[in-house]
């Protein structure tokens, strides 16, 4: 039996779930004070799902994807098509459809791209995401082009929410995504600590050795890729239901940039990093959106984080706790 290293708070599922639960508890108060910030928290919660999926690929498997907007786009457009052509408003079916379509696309794309690592993987993902974006854009008679597809309010368990007032509708959406996020974060924790997750880490640390002890590197990467894609597409499907509009913007490279940035902001090296990252990112974003040149801030912060605190916000907390306890001991 190998002795596992001591877990820190950054690698603790209880902390991750606790953060989401705390947000869910303080949400009604914040909504009463300022509905706008309530909406921001809603964004924060369902983006956790995509970020944590991205991080499975980035941190646990060692594949950096600059094209996760591809899967957010698949999720969102699945919802858009389901409503536009089939008239489906049931959010359960939306999620199921997104999971299936993203798994299919991820299988077809991953089949080729996970053969490559590092720069090749990163740019192939960027390129494929751009290809899909251009398809949404160019086939406007199907996708509505830049005008996008309008989506009606979703129904849940067969109950239509069409006649609800806006606030209650939004509350139901918020607690629904909170529930989904809690389940998926817990599931991800089980995934990264399963034999499969450990195999991924082994591949990340040393591919040759992993192959030597009998791990099928290609297959493991492909599975991780598909899981990551499904997580991102769920965020895409929820975003479509939240904005009630699907436009090519969600599949554009700047969305991929947000995924990468928010994960780094929280700290990619720890499990709870993306969870925190999602909330910090959306809080910063809603301040910075007033300043329209917000990509500059994002780019500068990426550069600063990489140079000064590669571990992101989590590392910042950790070092300040260590410094603090050292001061107290003295």
């Amino acid at each position, binding site marked *: 039996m190998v002795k596992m290293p001591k877990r820190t708070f950054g690698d603790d599922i209880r902390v991750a779930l606790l953060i989401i639960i705390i947000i869910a508890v303080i949400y009604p108060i914040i909504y009463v004070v300022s509905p706008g910030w309530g909406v921001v928290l809603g964004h924060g919660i369902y983006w956790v799902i995509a970020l944590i999926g991205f991080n499975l690929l980035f941190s646990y498997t060692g594949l950096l994807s600059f094209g996760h907007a591809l899967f957010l786009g698949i999720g969102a457009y699945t919802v858009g098509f389901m409503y536009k052509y089939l008239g489906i408003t049931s959010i359960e079916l939306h999620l199921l459809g997104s999971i299936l379509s993203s798994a299919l696309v991820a299988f077809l794309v991953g089949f080729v791209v996970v053969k490559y690592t590092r720069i090749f993987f990163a*740019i192939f993902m960027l390129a494929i995401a*751009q290809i899909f974006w251009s398809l949404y854009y160019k086939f406007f008679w199907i996708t509505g082009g830049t005008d996008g597809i309008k989506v009606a309010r979703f129904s849940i368990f067969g109950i239509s929410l069409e006649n609800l007032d806006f606030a209650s509708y939004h509350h139901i959406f918020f607690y629904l995504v909170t529930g989904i996020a809690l389940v998926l974060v817990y599931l991800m924790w089980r995934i990264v600590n399963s034999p499969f997750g450990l195999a991924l880490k082994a591949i990340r640390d040393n591919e040759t050795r992993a192959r030597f002890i009998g791990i099928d590197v290609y297959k493991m990467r492909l599975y991780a890729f598909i899981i990551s894609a499904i997580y991102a597409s769920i965020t895409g499907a929820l975003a479509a239901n939240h904005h009630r509009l699907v436009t090519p913007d969600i599949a554009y490279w700047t969305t991929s940039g947000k995924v990468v940035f928010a994960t780094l902001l929280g700290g990619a090296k720890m499990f709870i990093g993306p969870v925190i990252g999602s909330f910090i990112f959306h809080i910063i974003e809603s301040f910075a959106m007033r300043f329209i040149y917000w990509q500059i801030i994002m780019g*500068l912060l990426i550069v600063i984080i990489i140079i000064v605190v590669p571990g992101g916000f989590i590392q910042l907390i950790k070092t300040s706790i260590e410094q603090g306890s050292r001061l107290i001991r003295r």
Partner: protein
Amino acid sequence: MIGVEEIIIRSYNIFFGASILFLIAVGLNIIYGVMKIVNLAHPAFFTLGCYAVAGLGMGVIINVFGSSPLAPILIAPPLFAALIVVIASLLIFPLFLFMSGKGDEVQLLLTYGLLLIFEDLFRLIWGSEPLRASQPYELAGSIYIGEYIVPVYNIYVIISALFVALLLWFFLFKTKQGILIRAASMDIEMTSALGANVRRVLLITVLFAAFLAGLGGGLYIPSGSVMLGMSVELLVLAFVVVVIGGLGSFLGSLIGAFIVSLLRTITLILFPELELALIYIVAIIILTLKPEGLGGGKKW
């Protein structure tokens, strides 16, 4: 039936596209060859060159030289663009020093951050409307081949790119600095041990690659327009060039630029919606069959 004239005009477009792609991809390759950094922000240098001419330089150049002798109006914009881009790359050179020798993800993320910054700086300075600087293009006029109109300016671009490729070859293979760059790309520690100032070689490499990208931008802009998001589109294209030709290969960037331009022209005629998808499918096929690229895997 495709007539002779159409073949001429198409191949002429292919050469024009290839010239532009070559000027971007070769810089990407030189930086990769020496520093092992894939500079995602490299196409932003090209876009900066375009913006510098369209948003600033062309007006100044027209004012200074007037429009009667054609030569200064053709020659000054690319040089002006290259100058601006070299200055910009000088400002971010410390980041390149920081990145060299760091892990892949550090390099990818840092240059990606730079790309974001560049794209938004363009929006901040020049707004989100497409910009043009077509005076040289118009002044150069056009000739007729059969019923097709051929702009003379594009011929000038092709000839300039060929000239730059020749100069580049001379610089890399016949001058001392070029030999140092090639040496550093093969074994940077050994080069340093032999007494070369490696930091200076790195500086020259980055400035030189930026110079080529800026030159390309200044050459391209009179015949087209520059808009936001162009850097990413070019990155996606330039990367195919590099993949097809082989990372870090000088000859590869020539071959790759030509093939990608050829593919673009063909797909734009046959399936305009699927242009990028088809180019990438070809790139993946080439990468599967010949992982070292068509440049023969040779470094230079």
